[in-house]
């Protein structure tokens, strides 16, 4: 039933909440892609291309100062205006998108590198392994997230990779939990019985039997985590504990523009708009993926 209600609701769904009243399991499986997925994928694709080609597209080098054109408002020459040093804000936005995406992806990869093996192992072994892993993850989640990151970043000189690492550790427990719960669901599958009957080794079962089946749900969770990393990374650079100047980081640009917000609001506003487009794009992509892949919404794989 691809009723208009359902189609329009999917556009506006937040990743965290499913709507029990609205979503219906279709009797005949339609291969129609949800609009959220299409819009999200388009935005993300454009972002990836512009980030990859940022150095080529950018009209100016991101750190080139035009002393005569300080605080120039947006115009055809400077698409998003210039900042207090006369640097082209648009070029900095483009370079900044590389930093944001790099941070988001690296942090997420780190969290998956920690969370996925733990989750698979806990779900497969159950018993004591499960108990120990889940306790550790619970304790990790009980710490106030921003305190831990600030503590790590405050005691050591900040860098992009360190920020990514700190955020990656924060995101590992939720990834581990999702992996475990999906693994537990999969355990009753016939393919697992077959693998056990064949006497496969542990790593083979985890990597070749379970992982490919956990993957779809992980993709959805990963999109959430990328968004989380991008936003938290911006907060950290804003507070001065993330990427350091003169890097063209979005959070840093917003923070720097703060002093001139009355006379040159574009310095701060432009990176915020870029960030919200990024976040909305990735969230929509995640929601769309969930729609297509999540076993709770569609039929089982």
């Amino acid at each position, binding site marked *: 039933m691809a009723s*208009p*209600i359902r189609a*329009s*609701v999917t*556009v*506006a*769904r*937040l990743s*965290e*909440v*499913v*709507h*029990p*009243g*609205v979503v219906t399991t279709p009797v005949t499986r339609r291969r129609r892609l949800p609009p959220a997925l299409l819009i999200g994928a388009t935005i993300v694709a454009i972002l990836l291309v512009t980030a990859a080609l940022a150095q080529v597209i950018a009209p100016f080098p991101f750190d080139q100062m035009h002393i005569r054109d300080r605080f120039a408002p947006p115009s055809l020459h400077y698409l998003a205006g210039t900042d207090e040093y006369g640097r082209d804000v648009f070029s900095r936005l483009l370079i900044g998108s590389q930093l944001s995406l790099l941070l988001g992806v690296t942090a997420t990869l780190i969290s998956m590198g920690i969370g996925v093996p733990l989750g698979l192992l806990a779900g497969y072994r159950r018993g004591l392994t499960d108990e120990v892993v889940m306790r550790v993850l619970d*304790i990790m989640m*009980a*710490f*106030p*997230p*921003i*305190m831990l990151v*600030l*503590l*790590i970043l*405050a*005691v*050591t000189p900040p860098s992009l990779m360190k920020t990514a690492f700190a955020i990656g550790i924060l995101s590992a427990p939720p990834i581990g939990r999702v992996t475990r719960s999906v693994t*537990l669901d999969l355990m009753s599958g016939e393919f697992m019985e077959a693998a056990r009957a064949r006497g496969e080794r542990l790593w083979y079962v985890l990597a070749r039997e379970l992982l490919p089946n956990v993957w779809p749900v992980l993709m959805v969770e990963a999109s959430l985590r990328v968004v989380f990393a991008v*936003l*938290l990374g*911006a*907060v950290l650079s*804003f*507070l*001065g*504990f993330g990427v350091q100047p003169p890097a063209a980081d979005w*959070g840093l640009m*917003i923070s720097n523009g*703060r002093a001139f*917000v*009355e006379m040159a*609001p574009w310095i*701060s*506003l432009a990176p*915020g708009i870029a*960030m*919200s487009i990024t*976040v*909305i794009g990735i*969230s929509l992509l995640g929601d769309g993926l969930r729609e297509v892949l999540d076993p709770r919404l569609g039929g089982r794989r």
Partner: protein
Amino acid sequence: MTSYALRRLGTVAFILIVMSLLVFLATHALPSNTAALILGQYSTPETQAALEHKLGLDLPLPVQYWHWASGLLRGDLGQSLVMERPVAPMLWDAFGRSAVLAVCAMAVVSTLGVAMGVVAAVWRGRWPDHSVSVFAYLGISVPEFYWGLVLILLFGSTFHLLPTSGSGDLRDGLASFCSFLVLPVITLTLTLLAHVSRLTRSSMAEELDSMYVKVARARGLPERVVIIRHALRNALVPAITVLAQDFGFLIGGIVAIETIFAYPGLGRLLIFALQRQDLPLMQAAILVLTAVYCLANLTADLLYGVANPRIRYGGAVE
């Protein structure tokens, strides 16, 4: 339930102990030299060594930890290095200000969030629903401090309506005190609204589809009564627990928001301490924030049990 609560309290204590160890070790890994920081530019290695001896900084780490931790338990939070004042009064003053901010934000978020969720659920799939969704999406698509900046630009710079930095004093009257709170509270609300309104919407939608609502309608009760007295009452249970959880998120958000509005609360004090490497202040602020966060999470879990007796703790949770 009681044993569960006690066990959870034990976990909170455990986490505080681990956090105190982490904070202690991390601050001792700091590149800054405490004695040099206190003595300033005219210090010599000899005077530094003498002061380190006087402060006990040359003792072995476990002994130092013991001195520090037992001091904490006696309520002695030490002396701020940069401000040269005892930490405790500063901390409680900042704590009070942050608490005012947090409580106001929670009050606004809960009323507005629930109201928006109900509106979205009642007019499901129509424009009120979509507007609520778009609003919620926008709220969480940028980091919280960005909204702070936009609000400063709108209300402070353009219209000069509200103060954009600092905090008011109650002695100047309630109106002035509140005027300083308006923008930070709106900013916090924007970032938290999405969670509450979405959850209220989905639980409300579930209740509206249930049998007892159909029965109430069939009995000819006015729609207003059906929605408020019947459905909302049950839909509120999950909303309440989400609110308690959000209180934890709020503590994270408060750090950035207090910084952008120069609001002299706990978050700003923490950032100040981190930037100036004021160890005692940093340690105390992190521990207090951790304690508040853990207690908020504990409250959320316990409320969940009280509001929903079907959940049994400690048993199989699969």
